[in-house]
C-alpha cells in the first residue's frame, strides 16, 4: 500500500497544452503513471502524446474515469481550475502552480469545505508513490519503493532528503510535498494521519521550514498519536526575521514561526531532529534503529 496515489490512480492534467503541462505530463507518463486525459478549454477533441484532451473537467471525468487531477495552469486561472476539479468531485486535486493569489486560495478553501475533494498545494512539487505513480514535477529516478513516508513544505529540499534515503537503502512508501504557500490544502497533520494508518509506512520524515505554526500543530499530534518513528528537519535556522525567504509562507513575523520554536516543539513530541540538512537520511536511519 501507500497513501494518496498508487498504480490504479487515473490522472488528468489541467493545462495540458502549456509547455509546463506538456513536459511533466510526458515525464509522468514515462514514469508509469496512468495519464488518462487532459483539459484545456477550447482544445477539446485534440490529443497530446496519445492522451485525449477535453474542454471541461466534467467531460474528462465522464470519459476517462479519472480520480486525480494535476493543475499546471497559470496563476490567474489556477483557483478556477481547482474549483472546476472540485465541482467534478475529483477525489484528489494537485495544484503545482506557483504564485496563486492568497485571496483566491482563501475562497477556494471555503469552497472545498464539506466537499469530497481534497487539495494538495498550490506551489508544491506534487506526490509520488515510487514505482507506481508520480504526479508532479519531482525527478522520478531518485526515488525507490520502500516503507518511509516523506512529507515536506519544500520542493528541492525534499529531493535532497529522498536522495539521502535512497542512497542509504531506505525506500519510500509515498512522498508528499504540501507546498510553501500560506493558504494551501493538505497540511502536515492530514498527511501524517494517513501515514500513521498506512500499514506499509513504517516511519516518516517530516521537513518543515520557518513561518506559520503548522509544524507545531503537527508535532503536538505526533506526540499524542503517532505510532511510528519520525525524523525531522526545519529549514531556515539562520533566516533573519521579517524577510520572506522565497516561499510566500516562509517568513518570521512578530517573533513567531522561528526555526527554534519549531525544533523545540518537534523534539518535545519525540521527533528525532537532524541538525544538518545533510544528515536527514542518517537521522531517519537512527530513528528506525531505536
Amino acid at each position: 500500500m501507500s497513501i494518496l496515489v498508487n498504480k490504479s490512480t487515473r490522472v488528468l492534467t489541467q493545462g495540458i497544452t502549456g509547455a509546463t503541462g506538456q513536459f511533466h505530463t510526458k515525464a509522468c507518463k514515462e514514469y508509469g503513471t496512468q495519464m488518462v486525459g487532459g483539459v484545456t478549454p477550447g482544445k477539446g477533441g485534440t490529443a497530446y502524446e496519445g492522451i485525449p484532451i477535453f474542454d471541461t473537467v466534467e467531460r474528462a471525468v465522464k470519459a476517462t474515469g479519472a480520480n486525480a487531477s494535476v493543475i499546471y495552469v497559470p496563476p490567474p486561472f489556477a483557483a478556477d481550475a481547482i474549483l472546476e476539479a472540485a465541482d467534478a468531485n475529483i477525489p484528489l486535486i494537485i495544484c503545482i502552480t506557483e504564485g496563486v493569489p492568497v485571496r483566491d486560495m482563501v475562497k477556494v478553501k471555503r469552497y472545498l469545505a464539506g466537499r469530497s475533494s481534497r487539495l494538495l498545494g498550490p506551489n508544491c512539487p506534487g506526490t509520488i508513490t515510487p514505482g507506481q505513480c508520480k504526479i508532479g514535477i519531482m525527478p522520478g529516478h531518485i526515488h525507490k519503493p520502500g516503507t518511509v513516508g516523506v512529507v515536506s513544505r519544500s520542493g528541492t529540499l525534499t529531493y535532497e532528503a529522498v536522495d539521502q534515503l535512497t542512497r542509504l537503502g531506505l525506500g519510500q512508501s509515498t512522498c508528499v510535498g504540501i507546498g510553501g504557500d500560506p493558504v494551501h490544502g493538505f497540511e502536515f497533520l492530514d498527511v501524517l494521519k494517513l501515514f500513521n494508518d498506512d500499514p506499509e509506512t513504517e516511519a516518516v520524515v517530516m521537513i518543515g521550514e520557518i513561518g506559520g505554526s503548522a509544524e507545531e500543530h503537527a508535532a503536538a499530534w505526533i506526540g499524542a498519536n503517532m505510532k511510528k518513528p519520525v525524523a525531522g528537519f526545519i529549514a531556515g535556522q539562520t533566516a533573519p526575521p521579517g524577510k520572506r525567504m522565497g516561499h510566500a509562507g516562509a517568513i518570521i513575523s512578530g517573533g513567531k514561526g522561528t526555526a527554534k520554536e519549531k525544533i523545540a516543539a518537534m523534539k518535545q513530541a519525540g521527533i528525532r531532529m537532524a541538525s544538518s540538512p545533510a544528515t536527514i537520511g542518517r537521522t531517519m536511519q537512527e530513528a528506525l534503529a531505536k
Partner: protein
Amino acid sequence: MNIHEFQAKEILKRFGVPVPRGIVASTPEEAKAAAVELGGGVCVVKAQIHAGGRGKGGGVKIVKSAEEAAQRAGDMLGKNLITHQTGAEGRRVRRVLVEQGVKIERELYLAMALDRAQSRVTVICSSEGGVEIEEVAEKHPEKILREAIDPVIGLAAFQCRRIALALAIPAALTGKFIGVMQGLHRAFEECDASLAEINPLIITQDGQVMALDAKMNFDSSAFFRQKDILALRDLDEEDPREVEASKYDLSYISLDGNIACMVNGAGLAMATMDIIKLFGGEPANFLDVGGGANKEKVAQAFKILLADTRVRGVLINIFGGIMRCDVLAQGVVDAARELHITVPLVVRMQGTNVEQGRKILADSGLTIISVETMAEAAERIVNAIKN
C-alpha cells in the same frame, strides 16, 4: 510589498476611512506651504520611510507654526532615520507627510491580516492603540480581539457590533466605527493586501473616528491584477541588489556574511544557509534561482552575487529535477569565464544528468571545486575562504 503611510492613507480614504488632512512634502519649503495650506495651526510632520518605530526614532514631530514645520522637515529630509526596524544605518528620509493636528480622545488598534491556521482574513483589534501590538499581545493577550471573516459573507454587521461593544465605543459613534471597519475590509480585499493596520485608530474630541497612522502590505502574487498598487512601489526603499534580482525573477535577499550562495528552491536555499553556518561560515545572501533556471539566469545570478564586495567565496548547490545539471554546469562555466571570478567557487550538483555536468566542470580548466554532497560543499567553501 510595503508602501508609505501617505500612500496607505490615500487608499483608505478612497474606501471611506477618514484620515487627517495631509500633504506630502519633499523640501522644507514645501512643508511650510503645506502647513499654511492646512491652516497654519498645529501640525504633525512625519518622516515617510518603510519602517515602524518612527516616533521613537525622532521621525514624528508636532509643530505649532508653518515655520516650525519647515524647520522640522529640514531636520528630517535627506537624513537617515534610525528606528528599531531599520538596522543601524537607518533609512534615508526623502519625503515627509505634513498633517493637520487633531485632538485625541481615545487610541485603539485595528488591523486585518491572514490567519493561516484558519485560512481566513481576520480582524485584530484592541483597546490599547498607539503602542506596539506585539507588546500588548505578550502582556495582555485578553485585550486583543479577533474575528475571522467568511470570504463568502464578508465582514458581517454583527461582528462589527460585537467588536464595537467589546471596545466600549460610544453608541453615538458605533455607526462611524463600523464604517471604518468595513472600509478597511473592502480596501484589504479589493487591493489584495496581506496586512492592513491602523495604529492608532483614534476617536477625536469632536467625535470623529479616524486613522492616525496606516500601514499596508500587499500580496505580490496578485500584482497581475493590481497595477495601481504595484505603481506605489518605492525602489528607493529596497535593497538595490534585491531590486536587480527581481527583474530576472530571482529571489534574492541580502544577508551579513561573506559566502555567497546560489541554490534552486527556497527550502534548499534556506537549508544551504543553515549548513554554511553549521560549518562556521556566514552566508552573504539567500538566492533561489527557481526550478527552471537556464544559462542566462545563472549568469545574472552570478553577477548579482559578485556585485556584493564582501563576498569572499561562492557556493552553488543545485538539485536538478527539471533543471539539468549539464545545462547548469555550462552556465556556471560560461559565467565564471565571462566575469573572471577570482574568489573560490564550490559547486555541488545532484540529480538529472549529473555525470555530464561534472565532466563539463572538470574539463573547463577553471579552478572550480566540484563536490558531491551538501556537507562537503559547506566544509570546502568555509575552509577555502579561511586561506
